Protein backbone atom coordinates (compact mmCIF):
# COMPACT_ATOMS: atom_id res chain seq x y z
CA UNK A 1 0.00 0.00 0.00
CA UNK A 2 2.74 2.44 -0.76
CA UNK A 3 1.42 3.42 -4.14
CA UNK A 4 0.14 6.92 -4.55
CA UNK A 5 -1.38 6.56 -8.00
CA UNK A 6 -4.40 4.61 -6.95
CA UNK A 7 -6.48 3.75 -9.97
CA UNK A 8 -9.96 3.37 -8.74
CA UNK A 9 -13.55 3.71 -9.85
CA UNK A 10 -15.09 6.85 -8.39
CA UNK A 11 -17.30 6.70 -5.30
CA UNK A 12 -19.93 5.54 -4.20
CA UNK A 13 -17.83 3.62 -1.75
CA UNK A 14 -19.13 0.13 -1.14
CA UNK A 15 -20.63 -0.45 2.30
CA UNK A 16 -18.21 -1.81 4.87
CA UNK A 17 -17.96 -5.57 4.93
CA UNK A 18 -19.96 -7.25 7.65
CA UNK A 19 -17.85 -7.98 10.72
CA UNK A 20 -15.47 -10.79 9.88
CA UNK A 21 -15.48 -13.72 12.26
CA UNK A 22 -11.76 -13.47 12.87
CA UNK A 23 -10.02 -10.34 13.93
CA UNK A 24 -8.12 -8.73 11.09
CA UNK A 25 -4.47 -7.94 11.53
CA UNK A 26 -3.90 -4.84 13.61
CA UNK A 27 -7.04 -5.33 15.66
CA UNK A 28 -5.59 -6.85 18.79
CA UNK A 29 -4.98 -5.75 22.33
CA UNK A 30 -2.42 -3.17 21.16
CA UNK A 31 -4.90 -1.71 18.72
CA UNK A 32 -7.44 -1.46 21.48
CA UNK A 33 -4.99 0.54 23.56
CA UNK A 34 -4.27 2.80 20.60
CA UNK A 35 -7.99 3.33 20.06
CA UNK A 36 -8.21 4.43 23.67
CA UNK A 37 -5.19 6.73 23.39
CA UNK A 38 -6.52 8.38 20.23
CA UNK A 39 -9.91 8.80 21.82
CA UNK A 40 -8.10 10.44 24.73
CA UNK A 41 -6.41 13.00 22.47
CA UNK A 42 -9.73 13.87 20.92
CA UNK A 43 -11.32 14.38 24.30
CA UNK A 44 -8.45 16.58 25.51
CA UNK A 45 -8.76 18.88 22.52
CA UNK A 46 -12.52 19.04 22.96
CA UNK A 47 -11.90 20.18 26.56
CA UNK A 48 -9.29 22.72 25.46
CA UNK A 49 -11.83 24.14 23.00
CA UNK A 50 -14.81 24.27 25.32
CA UNK A 51 -13.38 24.98 28.78
CA UNK A 52 -12.46 28.65 28.15
CA UNK A 53 -15.94 29.23 26.73
CA UNK A 54 -17.62 27.43 29.62
CA UNK A 55 -15.49 29.35 32.09
CA UNK A 56 -16.62 32.63 30.53
CA UNK A 57 -20.28 31.59 30.64
CA UNK A 58 -20.12 30.40 34.27
CA UNK A 59 -18.14 33.45 35.37
CA UNK A 60 -20.74 35.76 33.89
CA UNK A 61 -23.21 34.55 36.54
CA UNK A 62 -20.90 35.04 39.53
CA UNK A 63 -20.09 37.88 41.86
CA UNK A 64 -16.65 39.43 41.50
CA UNK A 65 -15.59 37.81 44.80
CA UNK A 66 -16.70 34.38 43.67
CA UNK A 67 -14.89 34.92 40.37
CA UNK A 68 -11.56 35.43 42.16
CA UNK A 69 -11.88 33.01 45.04
CA UNK A 70 -13.42 30.04 43.27
CA UNK A 71 -12.73 30.17 39.52
CA UNK A 72 -13.92 26.59 38.86
CA UNK A 73 -16.95 26.53 41.14
CA UNK A 74 -20.53 27.17 40.22
CA UNK A 75 -22.08 30.48 41.31
CA UNK A 76 -24.16 30.40 44.47
CA UNK A 77 -26.99 32.27 42.84
CA UNK A 78 -27.28 33.24 39.20
CA UNK A 79 -26.34 36.91 39.05
CA UNK A 80 -28.41 38.20 36.17
CA UNK A 81 -27.62 41.74 37.28
CA UNK A 82 -24.18 41.26 35.68
CA UNK A 83 -25.97 41.20 32.35
CA UNK A 84 -27.99 44.27 33.25
CA UNK A 85 -24.78 46.15 34.13
CA UNK A 86 -23.09 44.98 30.94
CA UNK A 87 -26.09 45.85 28.80
CA UNK A 88 -26.68 49.37 30.08
CA UNK A 89 -23.76 50.64 32.19
CA UNK A 90 -21.05 49.17 29.97
CA UNK A 91 -23.02 50.08 26.84
CA UNK A 92 -22.95 46.56 25.40
CA UNK A 93 -26.65 46.88 24.58
CA UNK A 94 -25.99 49.91 22.41
CA UNK A 95 -23.10 48.09 20.69
CA UNK A 96 -25.28 45.07 20.07
CA UNK A 97 -27.95 47.21 18.41
CA UNK A 98 -25.29 48.97 16.33
CA UNK A 99 -23.95 45.62 15.11
CA UNK A 100 -27.46 44.48 14.18
CA UNK A 101 -28.07 47.70 12.22
CA UNK A 102 -24.81 47.45 10.29
CA UNK A 103 -25.21 43.75 9.43
CA UNK A 104 -28.88 44.26 8.52
CA UNK A 105 -27.78 46.79 5.90
CA UNK A 106 -24.53 45.23 4.75
CA UNK A 107 -25.44 41.56 4.22
CA UNK A 108 -28.56 41.96 2.05
CA UNK A 109 -26.75 44.63 0.04
CA UNK A 110 -23.67 42.42 -0.40
CA UNK A 111 -25.81 39.53 -1.56
CA UNK A 112 -27.83 41.62 -3.99
CA UNK A 113 -24.95 43.55 -5.53
CA UNK A 114 -22.61 40.56 -5.47
CA UNK A 115 -25.19 38.36 -7.19
CA UNK A 116 -25.94 41.02 -9.80
CA UNK A 117 -22.29 41.51 -10.69
CA UNK A 118 -21.52 37.78 -10.61
CA UNK A 119 -24.52 36.95 -12.78
CA UNK A 120 -23.61 39.47 -15.48
CA UNK A 121 -19.95 38.43 -15.41
CA UNK A 122 -20.83 34.73 -15.57
CA UNK A 123 -23.43 34.77 -18.30
CA UNK A 124 -23.00 37.79 -20.56
CA UNK A 125 -20.22 38.32 -23.07
CA UNK A 126 -19.17 41.92 -23.42
CA UNK A 127 -15.87 43.70 -23.95
CA UNK A 128 -14.10 44.14 -20.65
CA UNK A 129 -15.85 41.25 -18.95
CA UNK A 130 -12.56 39.61 -17.95
CA UNK A 131 -11.07 42.93 -16.79
CA UNK A 132 -13.98 43.60 -14.45
CA UNK A 133 -13.96 40.00 -13.20
CA UNK A 134 -10.28 39.98 -12.36
CA UNK A 135 -10.62 43.48 -10.92
CA UNK A 136 -13.08 42.08 -8.41
CA UNK A 137 -11.38 38.77 -7.75
CA UNK A 138 -7.90 40.30 -7.52
CA UNK A 139 -9.08 42.09 -4.38
CA UNK A 140 -8.85 38.77 -2.54
CA UNK A 141 -5.07 38.82 -2.31
CA UNK A 142 -4.70 42.42 -1.15
CA UNK A 143 -4.35 42.83 2.64
CA UNK A 144 -6.99 45.14 4.15
CA UNK A 145 -4.25 46.92 6.10
CA UNK A 146 -2.78 48.47 2.99
CA UNK A 147 -6.07 50.23 2.31
CA UNK A 148 -6.69 51.54 5.84
CA UNK A 149 -5.10 54.99 5.63
CA UNK A 150 -6.68 56.12 2.36
CA UNK A 151 -9.95 54.41 3.28
CA UNK A 152 -10.16 56.55 6.42
CA UNK A 153 -9.94 59.70 4.31
CA UNK A 154 -12.24 58.44 1.56
CA UNK A 155 -14.92 57.73 4.15
CA UNK A 156 -14.29 61.01 5.98
CA UNK A 157 -14.62 62.99 2.74
CA UNK A 158 -17.97 61.38 1.98
CA UNK A 159 -19.59 63.70 4.49
CA UNK A 160 -18.95 66.57 2.06
CA UNK A 161 -21.19 65.02 -0.58
CA UNK A 162 -24.32 67.01 -1.26
CA UNK A 163 -27.58 65.46 0.02
CA UNK A 164 -26.14 62.07 1.03
CA UNK A 165 -23.28 63.58 3.01
CA UNK A 166 -25.09 63.81 6.32
CA UNK A 167 -25.75 60.05 6.31
CA UNK A 168 -22.18 59.12 5.44
CA UNK A 169 -18.73 59.98 6.71
CA UNK A 170 -16.94 58.58 9.75
CA UNK A 171 -19.07 57.19 12.58
CA UNK A 172 -21.93 56.43 10.23
CA UNK A 173 -23.38 52.94 10.27
CA UNK A 174 -24.34 53.31 6.63
CA UNK A 175 -20.74 54.10 5.66
CA UNK A 176 -19.43 51.15 7.61
CA UNK A 177 -22.00 48.87 5.96
CA UNK A 178 -20.99 50.12 2.50
CA UNK A 179 -17.34 49.49 3.30
CA UNK A 180 -18.22 45.94 4.38
CA UNK A 181 -20.10 45.48 1.11
CA UNK A 182 -17.10 46.66 -0.89
CA UNK A 183 -14.61 44.42 0.92
CA UNK A 184 -16.94 41.40 0.61
CA UNK A 185 -17.29 41.82 -3.15
CA UNK A 186 -14.16 39.90 -4.22
CA UNK A 187 -15.05 36.64 -2.56
CA UNK A 188 -18.80 36.93 -3.10
CA UNK A 189 -18.37 37.63 -6.81
CA UNK A 190 -15.79 34.87 -7.17
CA UNK A 191 -18.00 32.32 -5.47
CA UNK A 192 -21.27 33.26 -7.14
CA UNK A 193 -19.75 33.58 -10.63
CA UNK A 194 -18.72 29.95 -10.42
CA UNK A 195 -22.23 29.15 -9.26
CA UNK A 196 -24.09 31.02 -12.01
CA UNK A 197 -21.89 29.46 -14.68
CA UNK A 198 -23.19 26.02 -13.88
CA UNK A 199 -26.79 26.99 -14.49
CA UNK A 200 -28.21 25.63 -17.75
CA UNK A 201 -28.47 28.09 -20.62
CA UNK A 202 -31.58 26.38 -21.96
CA UNK A 203 -33.65 27.65 -19.05
CA UNK A 204 -32.49 31.21 -19.68
CA UNK A 205 -33.40 30.86 -23.37
CA UNK A 206 -36.80 29.46 -22.53
CA UNK A 207 -37.56 32.25 -20.07
CA UNK A 208 -36.58 34.92 -22.58
CA UNK A 209 -38.75 33.29 -25.24
CA UNK A 210 -41.64 33.31 -22.84
CA UNK A 211 -41.33 37.07 -22.77
CA UNK A 212 -39.22 37.44 -19.69
CA UNK A 213 -36.99 40.51 -19.59
CA UNK A 214 -33.34 40.25 -18.55
CA UNK A 215 -34.32 41.65 -15.16
CA UNK A 216 -37.17 39.21 -14.78
CA UNK A 217 -34.91 36.36 -15.83
CA UNK A 218 -32.46 37.27 -13.08
CA UNK A 219 -34.87 37.93 -10.24
CA UNK A 220 -37.50 35.30 -11.02
CA UNK A 221 -35.47 32.44 -12.49
CA UNK A 222 -31.73 32.64 -11.89
CA UNK A 223 -31.69 34.01 -8.35
CA UNK A 224 -34.10 31.40 -6.97
CA UNK A 225 -32.09 28.68 -8.71
CA UNK A 226 -28.90 29.90 -7.04
CA UNK A 227 -30.40 29.57 -3.57
CA UNK A 228 -27.94 26.96 -2.18
CA UNK A 229 -24.98 29.09 -3.21
CA UNK A 230 -26.61 32.22 -1.83
CA UNK A 231 -27.17 30.54 1.55
CA UNK A 232 -23.53 29.43 1.86
CA UNK A 233 -22.07 32.78 0.93
CA UNK A 234 -24.74 34.57 2.95
CA UNK A 235 -23.79 32.77 6.16
CA UNK A 236 -20.14 33.44 5.38
CA UNK A 237 -20.86 37.15 5.06
CA UNK A 238 -23.13 37.35 8.13
CA UNK A 239 -20.40 35.90 10.34
CA UNK A 240 -17.65 37.90 8.64
CA UNK A 241 -19.48 41.22 9.03
CA UNK A 242 -20.71 40.51 12.56
CA UNK A 243 -17.18 39.60 13.68
CA UNK A 244 -15.30 42.36 11.85
CA UNK A 245 -12.82 44.24 14.01
CA UNK A 246 -10.20 46.31 12.17
CA UNK A 247 -12.59 48.27 9.91
CA UNK A 248 -14.82 49.57 12.73
CA UNK A 249 -11.76 50.35 14.85
CA UNK A 250 -10.56 52.68 12.10
CA UNK A 251 -13.91 54.09 10.97
CA UNK A 252 -16.02 54.29 14.14
CA UNK A 253 -14.34 56.18 16.97
CA UNK A 254 -17.32 57.81 18.71
CA UNK A 255 -18.09 55.71 21.81
CA UNK A 256 -21.83 55.36 21.17
CA UNK A 257 -21.34 54.28 17.54
CA UNK A 258 -19.12 51.27 18.20
CA UNK A 259 -20.10 47.77 17.09
CA UNK A 260 -20.21 44.80 19.44
CA UNK A 261 -16.81 43.15 19.00
CA UNK A 262 -15.09 46.52 18.94
CA UNK A 263 -16.96 47.89 21.95
CA UNK A 264 -16.29 44.79 24.02
CA UNK A 265 -12.59 44.88 23.14
CA UNK A 266 -12.39 48.58 23.98
CA UNK A 267 -13.98 47.82 27.36
CA UNK A 268 -11.47 45.02 28.04
CA UNK A 269 -8.53 47.18 26.99
CA UNK A 270 -9.55 50.20 29.07
CA UNK A 271 -10.58 48.16 32.10
CA UNK A 272 -7.49 46.00 32.13
CA UNK A 273 -7.15 43.50 34.94
CA UNK A 274 -8.89 45.55 37.61
CA UNK A 275 -12.54 46.33 37.58
CA UNK A 276 -15.90 44.74 37.09
CA UNK A 277 -14.89 41.33 35.71
CA UNK A 278 -18.23 39.65 35.84
CA UNK A 279 -19.99 42.45 33.93
CA UNK A 280 -17.26 42.18 31.32
CA UNK A 281 -17.80 38.42 31.11
CA UNK A 282 -21.53 39.01 30.82
CA UNK A 283 -20.73 41.27 27.86
CA UNK A 284 -18.52 38.54 26.45
CA UNK A 285 -21.35 36.03 26.74
CA UNK A 286 -23.76 38.47 25.06
CA UNK A 287 -21.26 38.57 22.20
CA UNK A 288 -20.55 34.86 21.87
CA UNK A 289 -23.78 33.07 22.80
CA UNK A 290 -25.97 34.25 19.88
CA UNK A 291 -23.37 33.19 17.29
CA UNK A 292 -22.80 29.86 19.01
CA UNK A 293 -26.54 29.17 19.09
CA UNK A 294 -26.94 30.05 15.42
CA UNK A 295 -24.00 27.77 14.68
CA UNK A 296 -25.38 24.84 16.66
CA UNK A 297 -28.74 25.18 14.91
CA UNK A 298 -27.22 25.37 11.42
CA UNK A 299 -23.91 23.50 11.86
CA UNK A 300 -23.92 21.85 8.46
CA UNK A 301 -24.62 25.04 6.54
CA UNK A 302 -22.23 27.16 8.61
CA UNK A 303 -19.38 24.68 8.23
CA UNK A 304 -20.05 24.43 4.50
CA UNK A 305 -20.27 28.22 4.17
CA UNK A 306 -17.06 28.94 6.03
CA UNK A 307 -14.99 26.27 4.31
CA UNK A 308 -16.47 26.91 0.86
CA UNK A 309 -13.83 29.47 0.05
CA UNK A 310 -10.99 27.03 0.36
CA UNK A 311 -12.71 24.09 -1.25
CA UNK A 312 -13.66 25.92 -4.43
Amino acid at each position, binding site marked *: MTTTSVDHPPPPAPPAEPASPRRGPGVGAGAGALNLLNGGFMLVWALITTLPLLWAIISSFKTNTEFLSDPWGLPETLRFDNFARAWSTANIGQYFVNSVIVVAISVPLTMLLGAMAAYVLARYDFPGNRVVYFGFVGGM*IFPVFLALVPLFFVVRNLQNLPLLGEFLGLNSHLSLALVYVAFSMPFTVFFLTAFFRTQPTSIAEAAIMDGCSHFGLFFRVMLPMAKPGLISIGLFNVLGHWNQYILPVVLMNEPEKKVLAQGLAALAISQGYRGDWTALFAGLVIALLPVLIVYILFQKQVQAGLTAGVLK
Partner: protein
Amino acid sequence: MSVIDVAPRAEARGAPRRPKPGPALQHGKVGFVLAFLAVPVVIYGLFVLSPYVQAIYISLTDWSGLTASQTFVGFDNYVRLFEDDQFWVALKNNVILMLVVPVVTLALGLFFASMINVGRRGKSGIEGVRGSKVYRVVYFFPLVLSMAVIGVLFKYVFAPTEAGGIFNGLLGLVGLDGLTQPWLGDPRFAFWCVVVVMIWAFVGFYVVLFSAAMQSIPKDIYEAALLDGSSRFTTFRHVTLPLVWDTVQVGWVYMAIQAMDGFALVHIMLGISGGPSRAGDVLGVALYRSAFNSYRFGYASAIGVVLLVLTLIISVLFMRAARRERVEL
Protein backbone atom coordinates in the same frame (compact mmCIF):
# COMPACT_ATOMS: atom_id res chain seq x y z
CA MET B 1 -43.17 36.35 -28.66
CA SER B 2 -40.61 35.79 -31.35
CA VAL B 3 -39.85 32.40 -32.72
CA ILE B 4 -36.14 31.74 -32.77
CA ASP B 5 -34.16 28.72 -33.69
CA VAL B 6 -33.02 27.05 -30.49
CA ALA B 7 -31.66 23.91 -32.05
CA PRO B 8 -27.99 25.04 -32.23
CA ARG B 9 -28.10 25.81 -28.53
CA ALA B 10 -29.00 22.30 -27.53
CA GLU B 11 -25.45 21.01 -27.49
CA ALA B 12 -24.40 23.71 -25.07
CA ARG B 13 -26.56 22.08 -22.44
CA GLY B 14 -23.97 19.48 -21.57
CA ALA B 15 -21.10 21.87 -21.01
CA PRO B 16 -22.38 25.16 -19.65
CA ARG B 17 -18.98 26.39 -18.51
CA ARG B 18 -19.01 29.61 -20.53
CA PRO B 19 -22.44 29.87 -22.04
CA LYS B 20 -22.57 31.81 -25.29
CA PRO B 21 -25.88 33.60 -25.23
CA GLY B 22 -28.17 32.97 -28.16
CA PRO B 23 -29.83 35.77 -30.12
CA ALA B 24 -32.66 36.04 -27.64
CA LEU B 25 -30.22 36.89 -24.88
CA GLN B 26 -28.57 39.57 -26.99
CA HIS B 27 -31.64 41.79 -27.10
CA GLY B 28 -31.35 44.74 -24.71
CA LYS B 29 -28.16 43.33 -23.31
CA VAL B 30 -26.00 46.45 -23.08
CA GLY B 31 -28.36 48.43 -20.89
CA PHE B 32 -28.88 45.45 -18.64
CA VAL B 33 -25.18 44.74 -18.19
CA LEU B 34 -24.50 48.39 -17.38
CA ALA B 35 -27.39 48.59 -14.94
CA PHE B 36 -26.25 45.51 -13.06
CA LEU B 37 -22.57 46.36 -12.93
CA ALA B 38 -22.72 50.09 -12.21
CA VAL B 39 -23.44 50.08 -8.48
CA PRO B 40 -21.16 47.16 -7.49
CA VAL B 41 -18.28 48.58 -9.52
CA VAL B 42 -18.69 52.10 -8.09
CA ILE B 43 -18.80 50.89 -4.48
CA TYR B 44 -15.90 48.52 -5.02
CA GLY B 45 -13.83 51.12 -6.84
CA LEU B 46 -14.49 53.78 -4.23
CA PHE B 47 -13.78 51.76 -1.07
CA VAL B 48 -11.36 49.10 -2.26
CA LEU B 49 -9.53 49.87 -5.50
CA SER B 50 -8.94 53.59 -5.03
CA PRO B 51 -7.57 53.19 -1.47
CA TYR B 52 -5.12 50.54 -2.64
CA VAL B 53 -3.82 52.71 -5.45
CA GLN B 54 -3.63 55.76 -3.18
CA ALA B 55 -1.81 53.80 -0.47
CA ILE B 56 1.02 52.91 -2.79
CA TYR B 57 1.43 56.56 -3.73
CA ILE B 58 1.11 57.79 -0.12
CA SER B 59 3.92 55.42 0.87
CA LEU B 60 6.20 57.55 -1.32
CA THR B 61 5.24 60.83 0.40
CA ASP B 62 5.87 62.39 3.80
CA TRP B 63 2.17 63.05 4.37
CA SER B 64 1.22 63.57 8.00
CA GLY B 65 -2.49 63.80 7.29
CA LEU B 66 -3.04 67.02 9.18
CA THR B 67 -1.61 69.16 6.42
CA ALA B 68 -2.87 69.12 2.89
CA SER B 69 0.65 68.85 1.51
CA GLN B 70 1.97 65.53 0.34
CA THR B 71 5.60 65.94 -0.62
CA PHE B 72 7.01 63.20 -2.79
CA VAL B 73 10.00 61.75 -0.97
CA GLY B 74 10.73 58.64 -3.04
CA PHE B 75 11.75 55.65 -0.99
CA ASP B 76 12.62 57.62 2.18
CA ASN B 77 9.85 55.91 4.16
CA TYR B 78 11.16 52.49 3.20
CA VAL B 79 14.73 53.44 4.14
CA ARG B 80 13.54 54.68 7.52
CA LEU B 81 11.44 51.57 7.92
CA PHE B 82 14.38 49.24 7.34
CA GLU B 83 16.45 51.22 9.85
CA ASP B 84 13.76 50.94 12.49
CA ASP B 85 14.43 48.08 14.95
CA GLN B 86 10.76 47.91 15.88
CA PHE B 87 9.89 47.14 12.26
CA TRP B 88 12.17 44.11 12.33
CA VAL B 89 10.59 42.91 15.58
CA ALA B 90 7.16 43.15 13.97
CA LEU B 91 8.33 41.53 10.74
CA LYS B 92 9.95 38.65 12.62
CA ASN B 93 6.69 38.07 14.50
CA ASN B 94 4.72 38.12 11.25
CA VAL B 95 7.05 35.53 9.76
CA ILE B 96 6.54 33.37 12.86
CA LEU B 97 2.79 33.71 12.39
CA MET B 98 3.13 32.77 8.71
CA LEU B 99 5.25 29.68 9.34
CA VAL B 100 4.64 28.31 12.84
CA VAL B 101 0.89 28.81 13.02
CA PRO B 102 0.09 27.04 9.70
CA VAL B 103 2.46 24.12 10.41
CA VAL B 104 1.09 23.39 13.89
CA THR B 105 -2.52 24.10 12.97
CA LEU B 106 -2.45 21.92 9.87
CA ALA B 107 -0.66 19.08 11.67
CA LEU B 108 -3.24 19.08 14.46
CA GLY B 109 -6.04 19.43 11.93
CA LEU B 110 -4.78 16.45 9.94
CA PHE B 111 -4.40 14.33 13.05
CA PHE B 112 -7.85 15.08 14.42
CA ALA B 113 -9.51 14.77 11.02
CA SER B 114 -8.00 11.34 10.43
CA MET B 115 -9.09 10.31 13.93
CA ILE B 116 -12.62 11.48 13.26
CA ASN B 117 -12.88 9.71 9.94
CA VAL B 118 -10.63 6.65 10.03
CA GLY B 119 -9.12 6.69 13.51
CA ARG B 120 -10.62 3.55 14.94
CA ARG B 121 -9.96 -0.04 14.00
CA GLY B 122 -12.92 -1.93 15.30
CA LYS B 123 -14.71 -5.14 14.53
CA SER B 124 -16.40 -3.66 11.50
CA GLY B 125 -13.15 -2.38 10.07
CA ILE B 126 -12.12 1.27 9.84
CA GLU B 127 -14.31 3.91 11.38
CA GLY B 128 -14.07 7.20 13.24
CA VAL B 129 -13.34 7.32 16.97
CA ARG B 130 -16.31 7.29 19.34
CA GLY B 131 -18.13 10.61 19.47
CA SER B 132 -16.80 11.79 16.08
CA LYS B 133 -19.97 13.68 15.28
CA VAL B 134 -19.80 15.66 18.51
CA TYR B 135 -16.11 16.45 18.04
CA ARG B 136 -16.73 17.80 14.56
CA VAL B 137 -19.24 20.26 15.97
CA VAL B 138 -17.28 21.22 19.08
CA TYR B 139 -13.91 21.74 17.40
CA PHE B 140 -15.47 24.30 15.08
CA PHE B 141 -16.76 26.55 17.90
CA PRO B 142 -13.94 29.13 17.77
CA LEU B 143 -14.44 29.66 14.03
CA VAL B 144 -17.79 31.37 14.47
CA LEU B 145 -16.47 33.78 17.09
CA SER B 146 -14.92 37.14 16.37
CA MET B 147 -11.15 37.30 16.78
CA ALA B 148 -11.87 40.28 19.03
CA VAL B 149 -14.07 38.19 21.31
CA ILE B 150 -11.43 35.44 21.38
CA GLY B 151 -8.81 38.05 22.22
CA VAL B 152 -10.85 39.38 25.14
CA LEU B 153 -11.48 35.85 26.41
CA PHE B 154 -7.81 34.87 26.36
CA LYS B 155 -6.67 38.16 27.80
CA TYR B 156 -8.38 36.92 30.96
CA VAL B 157 -7.41 33.26 30.54
CA PHE B 158 -3.75 34.33 30.64
CA ALA B 159 -4.26 37.00 33.31
CA PRO B 160 -2.17 36.95 36.51
CA THR B 161 -3.56 34.70 39.25
CA GLU B 162 -4.72 37.61 41.40
CA ALA B 163 -6.83 38.85 38.48
CA GLY B 164 -8.51 35.47 38.11
CA GLY B 165 -6.30 34.15 35.29
CA ILE B 166 -7.51 30.63 34.77
CA PHE B 167 -4.44 29.30 33.00
CA ASN B 168 -2.28 29.95 36.05
CA GLY B 169 -5.06 28.52 38.16
CA LEU B 170 -5.00 25.36 36.08
CA LEU B 171 -1.23 25.03 36.42
CA GLY B 172 -1.65 25.31 40.20
CA LEU B 173 -4.39 22.72 40.11
CA VAL B 174 -2.15 20.09 38.50
CA GLY B 175 0.73 20.92 40.83
CA LEU B 176 2.83 23.01 38.48
CA ASP B 177 2.70 26.16 40.64
CA GLY B 178 6.31 26.84 39.73
CA LEU B 179 5.38 27.49 36.13
CA THR B 180 2.84 30.23 36.79
CA GLN B 181 3.76 33.46 35.04
CA PRO B 182 2.27 36.82 34.26
CA TRP B 183 2.05 35.38 30.73
CA LEU B 184 1.08 38.48 28.80
CA GLY B 185 3.33 40.72 30.91
CA ASP B 186 6.56 38.92 30.07
CA PRO B 187 8.28 39.76 26.77
CA ARG B 188 9.48 36.15 26.48
CA PHE B 189 5.98 34.67 26.49
CA ALA B 190 3.58 37.41 25.41
CA PHE B 191 3.79 36.83 21.68
CA TRP B 192 3.75 33.04 22.01
CA CYS B 193 0.46 33.32 23.87
CA VAL B 194 -0.92 35.01 20.74
CA VAL B 195 0.47 32.17 18.60
CA VAL B 196 -1.18 29.58 20.84
CA VAL B 197 -4.52 31.38 20.73
CA MET B 198 -4.39 31.63 16.96
CA ILE B 199 -3.75 27.90 16.69
CA TRP B 200 -6.60 27.27 19.14
CA ALA B 201 -8.88 29.35 16.96
CA PHE B 202 -8.13 27.67 13.63
CA VAL B 203 -7.63 23.94 14.28
CA GLY B 204 -11.36 23.26 13.97
CA PHE B 205 -11.44 24.83 10.55
CA TYR B 206 -8.92 22.32 9.25
CA VAL B 207 -10.61 19.40 10.98
CA VAL B 208 -13.75 20.17 9.00
CA LEU B 209 -11.85 20.93 5.81
CA PHE B 210 -9.75 17.76 5.89
CA SER B 211 -12.71 15.66 7.00
CA ALA B 212 -14.50 16.64 3.83
CA ALA B 213 -11.45 15.61 1.80
CA MET B 214 -11.06 12.31 3.67
CA GLN B 215 -14.68 11.36 3.26
CA SER B 216 -14.20 11.20 -0.47
CA ILE B 217 -11.56 8.47 -0.05
CA PRO B 218 -13.22 5.08 -0.60
CA LYS B 219 -13.26 3.05 2.59
CA ASP B 220 -12.12 -0.13 0.83
CA ILE B 221 -8.64 1.33 0.34
CA TYR B 222 -8.41 1.38 4.12
CA GLU B 223 -9.83 -2.12 4.37
CA ALA B 224 -7.16 -3.31 1.96
CA ALA B 225 -4.41 -1.56 3.92
CA LEU B 226 -5.73 -3.15 7.09
CA LEU B 227 -5.70 -6.62 5.54
CA ASP B 228 -2.16 -6.05 4.29
CA GLY B 229 -1.19 -5.47 7.92
CA SER B 230 -0.29 -1.85 7.38
CA SER B 231 0.17 0.04 10.64
CA ARG B 232 -1.87 3.12 11.39
CA PHE B 233 1.02 5.43 10.78
CA THR B 234 1.92 3.76 7.47
CA THR B 235 -1.69 3.96 6.38
CA PHE B 236 -1.79 7.64 7.25
CA ARG B 237 1.54 8.37 5.61
CA HIS B 238 0.95 6.43 2.40
CA VAL B 239 -2.80 6.46 1.91
CA THR B 240 -4.48 9.37 3.68
CA LEU B 241 -1.83 12.03 3.31
CA PRO B 242 -1.22 11.71 -0.46
CA LEU B 243 -4.94 11.72 -1.11
CA VAL B 244 -5.62 14.93 0.81
CA TRP B 245 -2.32 16.66 -0.05
CA ASP B 246 -4.07 19.09 -2.41
CA THR B 247 -6.32 20.32 0.35
CA VAL B 248 -3.36 20.59 2.70
CA GLN B 249 -1.57 22.91 0.30
CA VAL B 250 -4.56 25.15 -0.24
CA GLY B 251 -5.12 25.13 3.49
CA TRP B 252 -1.56 26.23 4.15
CA VAL B 253 -1.89 29.31 1.96
CA TYR B 254 -5.24 30.18 3.46
CA MET B 255 -3.86 29.84 6.99
CA ALA B 256 -0.71 31.80 6.21
CA ILE B 257 -2.80 34.67 4.86
CA GLN B 258 -5.18 34.52 7.81
CA ALA B 259 -2.29 34.44 10.25
CA MET B 260 -0.75 37.52 8.68
CA ASP B 261 -3.48 39.52 10.35
CA GLY B 262 -2.63 39.18 14.02
CA PHE B 263 -4.12 42.61 14.58
CA ALA B 264 -7.14 41.84 16.74
CA LEU B 265 -5.34 39.39 19.04
CA VAL B 266 -2.22 41.50 19.53
CA HIS B 267 -4.17 44.73 19.89
CA ILE B 268 -6.48 43.30 22.54
CA MET B 269 -4.24 40.85 24.41
CA LEU B 270 -1.01 42.86 24.34
CA GLY B 271 -2.14 46.42 23.66
CA ILE B 272 -1.48 48.92 20.92
CA SER B 273 2.25 49.14 21.58
CA GLY B 274 2.74 45.39 21.10
CA GLY B 275 3.01 44.23 24.70
CA PRO B 276 5.87 44.31 27.21
CA SER B 277 9.04 45.80 25.69
CA ARG B 278 6.96 45.94 22.47
CA ALA B 279 8.18 42.41 21.86
CA GLY B 280 4.85 41.12 20.57
CA ASP B 281 4.43 43.71 17.84
CA VAL B 282 3.09 42.70 14.42
CA LEU B 283 3.01 44.70 11.18
CA GLY B 284 -0.74 45.32 11.31
CA VAL B 285 -0.50 46.87 14.76
CA ALA B 286 2.63 48.85 13.82
CA LEU B 287 0.78 50.21 10.79
CA TYR B 288 -2.25 51.20 12.86
CA ARG B 289 -0.02 52.88 15.45
CA SER B 290 1.98 54.88 12.91
CA ALA B 291 -1.15 55.98 11.10
CA PHE B 292 -3.71 56.71 13.77
CA ASN B 293 -1.57 57.42 16.84
CA SER B 294 1.37 59.30 15.30
CA TYR B 295 -0.26 60.43 12.03
CA ARG B 296 2.71 59.30 9.95
CA PHE B 297 0.58 58.26 7.03
CA GLY B 298 3.41 57.88 4.53
CA TYR B 299 5.34 55.63 6.88
CA ALA B 300 2.22 53.59 7.73
CA SER B 301 1.47 53.05 4.06
CA ALA B 302 5.02 51.79 3.53
CA ILE B 303 4.33 49.12 6.18
CA GLY B 304 1.16 48.28 4.26
CA VAL B 305 3.17 47.76 1.09
CA VAL B 306 5.49 45.38 2.96
CA LEU B 307 2.40 43.41 4.05
CA LEU B 308 1.26 43.30 0.43
CA VAL B 309 4.66 41.96 -0.67
CA LEU B 310 4.49 39.22 1.99
CA THR B 311 1.02 38.22 0.80
CA LEU B 312 2.16 38.14 -2.81
CA ILE B 313 5.12 35.91 -1.90
CA ILE B 314 2.76 33.41 -0.26
CA SER B 315 0.41 33.50 -3.25
CA VAL B 316 3.24 32.87 -5.72
CA LEU B 317 4.55 29.98 -3.62
CA PHE B 318 1.06 28.59 -3.62
CA MET B 319 0.60 28.82 -7.36
CA ARG B 320 3.89 27.01 -7.92
CA ALA B 321 2.89 24.32 -5.47
CA ALA B 322 -0.56 23.97 -7.01
CA ARG B 323 0.91 23.18 -10.41
CA ARG B 324 2.27 19.90 -9.10
CA GLU B 325 0.60 16.66 -10.01
CA ARG B 326 -2.56 15.70 -8.23
CA VAL B 327 -3.45 12.24 -7.09
CA GLU B 328 -6.65 11.29 -8.85
CA LEU B 329 -9.06 8.78 -7.43
